[in-house]
Structure formats: structure tokens, C-alpha cells
């Protein structure tokens, strides 16, 4: 088959059922990406004879004699199409995985099309940005600042990989061509709880191209946990590579390695497995009841707190005397809240490729948030010397916590060890839903008491989390859930009880917000309810009770650490400003507003270490290596900005390497806001040490006092004298050692960051639609290292929060089957769903953080659900206590409420209830069209046409 791609002729036969996307990728056009593989996300958008199409849905054979344009060919070599330039200037991406499709779509739009971006961009999903930056790009707004020496921090410095990305030259995990690849596919359990009795693999083995089939009998019986964490004991080992007991529907049972994905899939279908089906339990409260099915009956060996009741982690603590606190209260509120299972939906699915090099080392190319921890875990699992393993990422397409797990690397390394062949496993989008981690569902009971003046006298929280069949992060998520949302308020009497409970649900895992989002939803909703009982304005209620400056942890010292007061003021003023959309016309629309706050304890709950390696090269530029992961979080850019600021150079003068166990020192990975707060701190320490050495060396050479030395634009400058870095390097003995430093940072100490989200909403009491009229977010983030990136992180968090509040929900039936394992049926926010937010920064500085910055990676999602719930309550007087608030679920809440609804269709049904029954005569007026006689059909006309 002949066709032209990007102006070049190709001649290659497609496979019969091949789609255009994989055909193009086989030709080496890797910018055509797979996000959903089903036409929903648009990451694979290309031009087909000049028209944009989703290439995953186009049969490859139809490309015969056609002209295809991919992002790589959008502009002639070395040039940029205006839309590529716009995306560069607006930095309209974070992880960048959606960027190819986004640019190919936007570049196809005419001026008239650009008037309706909600419609034109509905087929391009971005999970990172919240779409504001993408709109900026389409509108031609430039956001990026010039990279000026000495002004790296505080400037909108563009990403390190921006140019390559918009040209389609950056490579994600699967964007490489490796010969002789083996492909992994797995047989997954159709039962939520079962014992594997017998596996028949003869038919599969006989299939040509099948090279290896692995079951639980063929792998080391060595327990591990898929969760990755610096502190080994956080997540006790509970998993085997392959097991003869399955504890959730979708658990992998057999791995097949074959010459192609098609053969591996066919082999999986030929494998027959006999199971002894065991009783299953899906609700955590039921799982704690006596007689419930036990997931880990082996008892203490499973290292769970109460095996008989399936309780992995039980934690309880009380300060003061809660019972007395409630006695002292004038008003008490108690309520139950529920959060649903949601999925991360990082656009790049999990996947990795492993191979052995001639020197016998194994290389693992993967999309992970924790490359060094993956290296350690693989070394343990396969009893290998960690030095024999090289784990690295190029670009990573999103994570949000889902890639703080080892889910694919193990079976790839196993394939390499058993066959010697390079091995690849790329998850489908469906696998993300049925076997990937999601957010822990929480069932919560919160009780608050306060005096008439609003002062809280007692806070009590009971939280039950469904950690699913395995415990991936369940204990730490529970700890975080019980900590900062409760610590947000001053109160002498507090009590918390938490249970992380095993069920036969799909394991949950680390998820942006890490448990705090769930309990903040409960507590911040309850604060509003209590304020209402007391007749106190909800914003005032928070001012009365929130952590004050003198009580904020780490508040010692003279600098302004505390910014909560500023943030609350910003949001209140903005909500009162009249900005945003007006309430839509019509009596059915009710307007309301609400806020929620959160003091964010940003550090990873346990020990977290990061090392930075920094040296000056002979040509006067710096080389920075740190093991953090960059998956859209912007940390890679932030650390080079920190180094550049300290060293007085442009950000571009700091060549930066991350996420590679061969090329970077140890780092515990990027999660829990550690990118800036811990890796950034290590880099700052290293840069300051190197700065001191540069000044000292220059002072020696020039005979100047060290105290006078400054680093300015690539020179060490003294009064009247200066020396360039390259020259200083040349003149300094053993400069390669003298100007090479390594520093370590750990997670503590740090100061809490603070966030406030405010919404004005309108609720349609006829349809139950919730419409956001205004969104305001204020953060106390300390020094803002890169305003553009921080805004992106906040906007992305808000968007993620809006999606998980208003409609996202993994639906699982009573057998444990996921009913909406596609992006078509699990909707994430599209452009049209996300309003533009006003964003405000408190003027603060954190003495503990790098350059005065606080950590702000995952926090902005945390207050979103509660703020929306509070605004809806204000609008319609009904407290929505169960996420999500999709219109159909709002309808159920209103339907069940005892309030009298002027809206809904009671307006006309009430009228009808009084109406007479239909008379026979009236019935004759009504004819069901299905009964239409067939002679109605104009056959004659049809025949002629």
C-alpha cells in the first residue's frame, strides 16, 4: 500500500484490522499517540487528506494513496507552524501527552471555529492543564518570559522539553522502535475472589509465535507490594508476581509472552482456568462484620491489624476530651459523607519495555513517578544486584499518583530473564479501569460541636476507606486523611478513628490529594452545616476557627509564613466582586456560593530523601542531576530554575537530567509534592555549596575578599574585577572535583501551605444541572518559583476536582465488574466542562522551603468537592453528601428531600394531579406512533428516489 506521510512516500502493507495510528507509529511517526485507543481522547489526531481525524478509528487500509500529516510534518523541517509557536509561547501543556493531538486539532481550526472552542475541542482531552493554557495558545496569548540570568526564580520559564514537544520530537515510554520485541498480555480473573485450581495452556502453547507462558507455579514465591515508598514498612508486602489466589476481578493470573500483541491476546483467549469461587465482599463496613469473607486468613503473617475483620490499618487517637467538648457545645452537627471510586486517567497508560544489553545489565524504560524505587523493588524481587538494573523514563504522560506503583515493570523484566528477548507491556485504557489503582472510596461520619459564638468545642471523625484487595498506600492515605483536614481547625478536643479495610474491590492507590480530599469533603461540608445552625456566615466561621499564625506549625521566626488570612480575604472579595457569569435567566435557576479551606501538610508522610548532583563543566555551563520524575508536574523545570537563580545564570545554562537511575543520585520519587519541596531543597543546598566554592576559588585567583563575591551572568564578580566561569574552571586545579557537589535533603522540616477555593454556582431545579458561574482559588504557596507553572498546577487540580465532584465515577456491579471501563463512559472534564478560575497568591515566604517556596503539587484538588457542595447547599438548601453531584444524582437527592420544590416538574405535575383522568375521547386524541399503519410509508416516493 502506498501513501504519503508528511510529504514522504511510503509503501507498506497494513495488517487487515490495523488502525491508522499503529500503522503510522510502525513507520516511525511516534508523535501520533495512544491515549484511549477508542476515539475519545484525541491524542492520535492526524490530518487525513487535510481533515483532522482520530487515527485510532481509521482503518489503515483506507490510507491507500492518501496524504497523512502528523505533528512531525506540520511545518517544514526546522520551522514551526504558528500553532506550534503559540503552544510554545503559552506553554499549553504539562505532561505533553495530549499535545500532538491538541496542536493538530487547533491548527485545523478556522477563525470562525475558534469562536466555539468548547465544541471544537470536545474531542481532545487534557488531564493536566485545566484547559486555560490551551485556550491561551489558540488565542495567541504569550505567557513565557525571557530567560534572563539572575531572574530564573519568579519568572515564567518555559519547560525544558517545550520545543521538542511542540515539534513532535519528544519520546514517551512507547515511542521507540526495538527489534525482536516480545509482547506481554495477561489473563485476568473473571472472579472477585477465587482459588486457582488448574490452568490449561496446551492450546495457547501450540499457537505459533507464543514464546512463554507464566503462571504462579513458575515465579518466585516472594511477597512484595506494588506501592513504591521510601519507607519500606509503609505498605507491607501482600502481593506475588502471580498468585494462586485472586482477590479482585481483573487480577492478573497468567502472563503470555508472544511475538505480537495479536498472538499474545489470542493465546490468552485459549487459556482455560478452573477456579474455586470464594465468597466476596465489596463494602468495607460489611467486610468488618463477623463472618465476612476473609481476604488474608493467614493472620499475622499478612501483617494486617485485624485479619478476621479484614482491617488492614486501624488508627484511633484523641486529644482533649471530645465527650466533654460536645457537652460544652451549644450546637452539634453530625453527618455522613461518602466519596466514590475515581480513576486517575493519566493519558499515557502504564507500560514499560525491558531489555538486556551486551554487558548483561537490564534496562527498564518505563513511565514511573519513582524510578529509583522501581530499581530497588525489581532488584529485591528477582534477587539481582541493583547495579545491574537501569531504570529510566524519557517523557512520562501524567501520573497523579497512579505511577507510584510497580505494575508493568516486573513482568517485562521476568520476560527478559526467561527469554533473553526485549519485552514490552503496554496497558490498554480498559486495563487502567479494571486493574489500575484508583482513589480510595471513603465512608465518613463527622461530628462537630461549637459554642454560640462559633468557637469549635469538639471535632470527631470516623473514616472507613475501601483499600480493595491489596493495600497499596492504604495505610498512609488513611493517615493523611485523618491528619491535615482535622488540623485545619483549632479545637481543644479532637478525636479521629480510621479503618483501611480490605474488600474484593480493585485495589485503590495513591491519588492526587492522598486521602485529604475525601475527609476535607466531609469536614468542610460539616463546618458549613454547623455555621448554618449557629446562624454564622460560613466564611466567618472559618476565620473564627482556622489555624492562626501563632498556632501554625513552624511559625517560629520573623518571616511571614502564614498566609491563610490573606487567602480567605482574596476569595471573599472575589466572590463579592460581581465578576464571573451572571445567574442564568429563569426562576428555575437558584444561585449560591460556597468556600472550603485546607491547611496542607505537604511532606510525604514518612521519610523521603532526595540527592542533587551539580557540577560546572569546562565550558562554563552547569550540569544538574536529580532522580525526580517529570510527568507534567513541572519539577524538572523548577529545580533548574532554583539552581540557575542561586548560580546567577539563565535557566538554560543548567543542563538538567532527571528520572534515570544510571545518571542521577538516589531520590525517593515524585509524589506528595516532593518535587519542589524535597528535590528542590537538595538542589538549592547543592547550588549554594557550589556557589560558595566558585566565589572562594575566584577570590583566591583574583585576590579579592570572599565576602564581596557575587555570581552575575556567568561570572564571579567582585568590586572592579570579575572572572567568567569557563575561565575560572580553566585556572582552577582539579576543577572537575572542586566544582562538583552533591547534597541530600529530607522531607522535614516544612511549613503548611494553605488553600481556599470559592465557587458561585447556579442550580437548575428543573433539570438538576449544576453550573459553575465563578471559580476562585487562593493559595499560600510561599515564594512562587514559576507563576505560569504554579497556575497550571492549580488549574489542573481544580479541573480534576470539578470532574471528580460533578460526574466522574467508576461504576462496579455486585460481581465486581467495572461497567464503564472506557473514556466514553467514564467522562473526564473536557474543555467545555471547566470554567476559568481567578487565582491569587498570598505574600509569604517559607524559611524551610527551597527559595522560600512551599509545596503545592497535589493540594489544589483538596477543597474543590466541599466548596461545590457548600455552594449547592447555599443555592437550593439541600446538602449533597455523596459524590459525585451529577444531575441524575442531584435529582435523586432532591426527589428524596422533604423540601417543597417549586422547580422539578412538580410545577406541572401538581397541576396534573388535580386534572381529571383521561377520558376515552381524549384517548382518541393520542395515538402511539408505533401503531402507525404501514401504508403511511411513502413507498412510491422511495422507489423513485
Amino acid at each position: 500500500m502506498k501513501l504519503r506521510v508528511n510529504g514522504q512516500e511510503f509503501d507498506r502493507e497494513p495488517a487487515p484490522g490495523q488502525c491508522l495510528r499503529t500503522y503510522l507509529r510502525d513507520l516511525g511517526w511516534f508523535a501520533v499517540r495512544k491515549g484511549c485507543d477508542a476515539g475519545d481522547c484525541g491524542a492520535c489526531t492526524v490530518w487525513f487528506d487535510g481533515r483532522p481525524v482520530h487515527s485510532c478509528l481509521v482503518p489503515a487500509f483506507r490510507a491507500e494513496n492518501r496524504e497523512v500529516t502528523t505533528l512531525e510534518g506540520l511545518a517544514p523541517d526546522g520551522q514551526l507552524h504558528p500553532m506550534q509557536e503559540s503552544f510554545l509561547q503559552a506553554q499549553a501543556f504539562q505532561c505533553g501527552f495530549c499535545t500532538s493531538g491538541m496542536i493538530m486539532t487547533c491548527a485545523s481550526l478556522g477563525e470562525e471555529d475558534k469562536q466555539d472552542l468548547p465544541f471544537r475541542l470536545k474531542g481532545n482531552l487534557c488531564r493536566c492543564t485545566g484547559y486555560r493554557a490551551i485556550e491561551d495558545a489558540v488565542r495567541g496569548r504569550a505567557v513565557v518570559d525571557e530567560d534572563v540570568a539572575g531572574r530564573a526564580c519568579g519568572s515564567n520559564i518555559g519547560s525544558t522539553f517545550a520545543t521538542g514537544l511542540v515539534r513532535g520530537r519528544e519520546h514517551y515510554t512507547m515511542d521507540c522502535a526495538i527489534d525482536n520485541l516480545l509482547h506481554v498480555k495477561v489473563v485476568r480473573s473473571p472472579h472477585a475472589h477465587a482459588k486457582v485450581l488448574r490452568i490449561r495452556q496446551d492450546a495457547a502453547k501450540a499457537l505459533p509465535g507464543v514464546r512463554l507462558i507464566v503462571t504462579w507455579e513458575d515465579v518466585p514465591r516472594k511477597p512484595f507490594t506494588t506501592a513504591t515508598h521510601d519507607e519500606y514498612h509503609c505498605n507491607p508486602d501482600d502481593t506475588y508476581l502471580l498468585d494462586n489466589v485472586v482477590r479482585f476481578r481483573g487480577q492478573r493470573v497468567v502472563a503470555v509472552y508472544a511475538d505480537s500483541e495479536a498472538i499474545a491476546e489470542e493465546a490468552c483467549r485459549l487459556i482455560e482456568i478452573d477456579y474455586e469461587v470464594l465468597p466476596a465482599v465489596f463494602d468495607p463496613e460489611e467486610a468488618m462484620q463477623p463472618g465476612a469473607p476473609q481476604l488474608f486468613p493467614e493472620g499475622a503473617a499478612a501483617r494486617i491489624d485485624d485479619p478476621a475483620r479484614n482491617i488492614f490499618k486501624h488508627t484511633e487517637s484523641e486529644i482533649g476530651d471530645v465527650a466533654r467538648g460536645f457537652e460544652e457545645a451549644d450546637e452539634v452537627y453530625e453527618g455522613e459523607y461518602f466519596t466514590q471510586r475515581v480513576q486517575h486517567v493519566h493519558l499515557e497508560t502504564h507500560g514499560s519495555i525491558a531489555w538486556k544489553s551486551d554487558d548483561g545489565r537490564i534496562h527498564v524504560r518505563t513511565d514511573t513517578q519513582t524510578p529509583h524505587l522501581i530499581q530497588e523493588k525489581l532488584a529485591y524481587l528477582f534477587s539481582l544486584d541493583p547495579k545491574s538494573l537501569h531504570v529510566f523514563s524519557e517523557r512520562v504522560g501524567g501520573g497523579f499518583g497512579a505511577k507510584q506503583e510497580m505494575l508493568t515493570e516486573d513482568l517485562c523484566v521476568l520476560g527478559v530473564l526467561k527469554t533473553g528477548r526485549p519485552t514490552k507491556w503496554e496497558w490498554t485504557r480498559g486495563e487502567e479501569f479494571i486493574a489500575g489503582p484508583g482513589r480510595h472510596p471513603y465512608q465518613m461520619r463527622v461530628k462537630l460541636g461549637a459554642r454560640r459564638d462559633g468557637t469549635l468545642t469538639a471535632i470527631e471523625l470516623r473514616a472507613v476507606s475501601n483499600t480493595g484487595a491489596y493495600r497499596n498506600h492504604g495505610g498512609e492515605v488513611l493517615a493523611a486523611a485523618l491528619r491535615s483536614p482535622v488540623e485545619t481547625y483549632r479545637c481543644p478536643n479532637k478525636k479521629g478513628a480510621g479503618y483501611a479495610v480490605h474488600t474484593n474491590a480493585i485495589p485503590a492507590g495513591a491519588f492526587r490529594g492522598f486521602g485529604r480530599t475525601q475527609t476535607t469533603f466531609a469536614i468542610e461540608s460539616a463546618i458549613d452545616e454547623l455555621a448554618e445552625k449557629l446562624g454564622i456566615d460560613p466564611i466567618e466561621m472559618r476565620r473564627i476557627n482556622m489555624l492562626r499564625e501563632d498556632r501554625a506549625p513552624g511559625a517560629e521566626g520573623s518571616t511571614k509564613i502564614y498566609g491563610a488570612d490573606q487567602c480567605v480575604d482574596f476569595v471573599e472579595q472575589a466572590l463579592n466582586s460581581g465578576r464571573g457569569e451572571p445567574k442564568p435567566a429563569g426562576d428555575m435557576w437558584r444561585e449560591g456560593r460556597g468556600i472550603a479551606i485546607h491547611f496542607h501538610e505537604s511532606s510525604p508522610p514518612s521519610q523521603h530523601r532526595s540527592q542533587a548532583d551539580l557540577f560546572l563543566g569546562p565550558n562554563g555551563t552547569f550540569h544538574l542531576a536529580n532522580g525526580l520524575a517529570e510527568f507534567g508536574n513541572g519539577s524538572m523545570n523548577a529545580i533548574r530554575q532554583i539552581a540557575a537563580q542561586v548560580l546567577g545564570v539563565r535557566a538554560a545554562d543548567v543542563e538538567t537530567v532527571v528520572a534515570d537511575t544510571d545518571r542521577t543520585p538516589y531520590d525517593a520519587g515524585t509524589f506528595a509534592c516532593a518535587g519542589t519541596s524535597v528535590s528542590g531543597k537538595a538542589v538549592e543546598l547543592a547550588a549554594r555549596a557550589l556557589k560558595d566554592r566558585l566565589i572562594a576559588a575566584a577570590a583566591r585567583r583574583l585576590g579579592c575578599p570572599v565576602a564581596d563575591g557575587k555570581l552575575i551572568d556567568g561570572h564571579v564578580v567582585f568590586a572592579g574585577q570579575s572572572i567568567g566561569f569557563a575561565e575560572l574552571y580553566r585556572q582552577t586545579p582539579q576543577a572537575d572535583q572542586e566544582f562538583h557537589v552533591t547534597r541530600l535533603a529530607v522531607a522535614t522540616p516544612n511549613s503548611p501551605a494553605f488553600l481556599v477555593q470559592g465557587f458561585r454556582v447556579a442550580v437548575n431545579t428543573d433539570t438538576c444541572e449544576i453550573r459553575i458561574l465563578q471559580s476562585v482559588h487562593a493559595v499560600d504557596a510561599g515564594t512562587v518559583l514559576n507563576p505560569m507553572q504554579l497556575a497550571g498546577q492549580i488549574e489542573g487540580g481544580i479541573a480534576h476536582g470539578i470532574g471528580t465532584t460533578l460526574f466522574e465515577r467508576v461504576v462496579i456491579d455486585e460481581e465486581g465488574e467495572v461497567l464503564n471501563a472506557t473514556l466514553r463512559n467514564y467522562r473526564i472534564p473536557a474543555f467545555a466542562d471547566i470554567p476559568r478560575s481567578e487565582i491569587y497568591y498570598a505574600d509569604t515566604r517559607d524559611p524551610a522551603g527551597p527559595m522560600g517556596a512551599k509545596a503545592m503539587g497535589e493540594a489544589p484538588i483538596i477543597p474543590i468537592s466541599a466548596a461545590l457542595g457548600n455552594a449547592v447547599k447555599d443555592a437550593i438548601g439541600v446538602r449533597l453528601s455523596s459524590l459525585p453531584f451529577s444531575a441524575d444524582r442531584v435529582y435523586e437527592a432532591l426527589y428524596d428531600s422533604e423540601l417543597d420544590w417549586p422547580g422539578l416538574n412538580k410545577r406541572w405535575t401538581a397541576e396534573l394531579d388535580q386534572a381529571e383522568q383521561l377520558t376515552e375521547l381524549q384517548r382518541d386524541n393520542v395515538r402511539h406512533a408505533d401503531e402507525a399503519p404501514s401504508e403511511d410509508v411513502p413507498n412510491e416516493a422511495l422507489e423513485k428516489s
Partner: protein
Amino acid sequence: MDLHTITTVRRPRCPEEVETWADGHAWLAGGTWLFSEPQVHTDTLIDLEGFGWQPLQVTPEGLKIAATCRVVQLDQFQAPPEWSAAPLIPICCRSFLASYKIWNEATVGGNLAMSLPAGPMIALTAALEGTCTLWSRDGAKRHVPVAQFVTGDNQNILQPGELLRSVFLPQAALEKTFAFRRFTLTHQGRSEALLIGTRDPGDGEILLTVTAATLRPYQFRFAAGVTSAQVRGALDAAIADDMYLDDTHGSPRHRKHLTYLFAEQIRAELSGEHS
């Protein structure tokens, strides 16, 4: 996605070339649904593209839409000015969950043949009193109203190998006035309820078409002057509670609520009342 089980693609120039039909065969129109899910029971794709059917034909009797007419072609159709219901065409095209980029490949016939409750081409052609022309492999033809072509969620009357050739919209329907109501849980998402009413300019008869909320389309003819109670009574009598769709795009109770709400709004609008 790659359909790994496909072993054969046939690209005939006319339907007569397809003499045999077997389990595992599938007609391929735009391919936008076929390639969006694994099709492990399909091994042969038979491409309709080579038939070269004229996408749209205006005749004195109405509009003939070939099954292979791409949604983008229908969307861009310039209707005669007297076809007062023609604005429903672009409105319904905008009622897809799918992006307009997918319309570049997706076909009208494909949407009908998929027979999903939210299929907006079903809503459009049912409301405009369309008739499907079906060709079976033995050469027999039959004509069926769109509202009877779809029988359930992803179910229709097509026999194995039978081909949906075209949909014909009669001129009388195209010259009616109309009212349109739609709701989606996410902005521009999949229709949770999509109702269309048309009104005969002559006798004032209202034809109400209920789609998306229900497993299959329902249609009601009301004489001029129909009351709220009559509309409600007709809905009550025709649509059982278990015929409202239950999936992630809407709950059955909310879909029923929207159906009644929109039906009344459409009745009032077409009757010239202020709702």
C-alpha cells in the same frame, strides 16, 4: 484500535458482489464504532466505501440520505429554504458525544445500525418521519420507519448480512416546525434525554419523538390542542419504567423526569403557549 482478529478485508464495488454471509462478517462504514472496541468475534470486514453511493439526494418527495453519507456531509447540507425543519440537521449533528473530527469518518447509517439509545441520527430521522430501506443478501428490499427499525439498546431489525441502504425523509416532515430539547450530564456529553417535537402547519398535529432516555425511540402523535395531562397520560401508558436506560450517562428516574419535563415544554412551545 487494532482489531487483531480481522483476517480479511473485502472492498467490493457493489453489494451484489457480496453473495455470501457468515458469522464473523461485518459491514464497515465509517468504522468509528467498529474500531473503538475489540471485536473478537469478527474476522472479516466488508467495506461499503467502494459502493460510491451518492450521499444526499434532494427529490421532489424529500431527502434521501445514503447510509454511507458521512455525518460531516449531512451537517454541511444546504436545505431548500422551505424546509423549515432542516435546522434540526446541524442541531442533531451537534448532539453526538463524539467529536466533529469523528464525523469526518462516521456515517449516518452507522449511527442507525449501532442503534444506541443516544444515537442522534436516530432521533433526527425518526422525528422527521424517516423510512429505512434495507437490502438483504438475497436481493429483497424492505422499507421500515426509523422508529420501528431500532428495537432496543444496540438492537434493531437488521437480519444477518442485511444492509441499511438509505433513509428517506419525506418533504411534508421537512416542512414542519419543530422544538428540540436535550440534556447531558457533562457539557457536550452523551444525550441523557433527547426529545424532538414537530408540528404540522396544516392541522397542527404534533409528533413527539422521545430518544436517548429510553432503550428505543418512542413516538406520539397528538392532535392540535393537546393538553399537558394528555401528553403525560400518553407517556405513562407507553413507556414502562424499565424502558428508561440505566447507565453512566444518566439514571432511569432522572431520564424519566427529563422526558416528562421536555415533553411538556415541547407541547407548550409547539402549541404557542408560554411555558
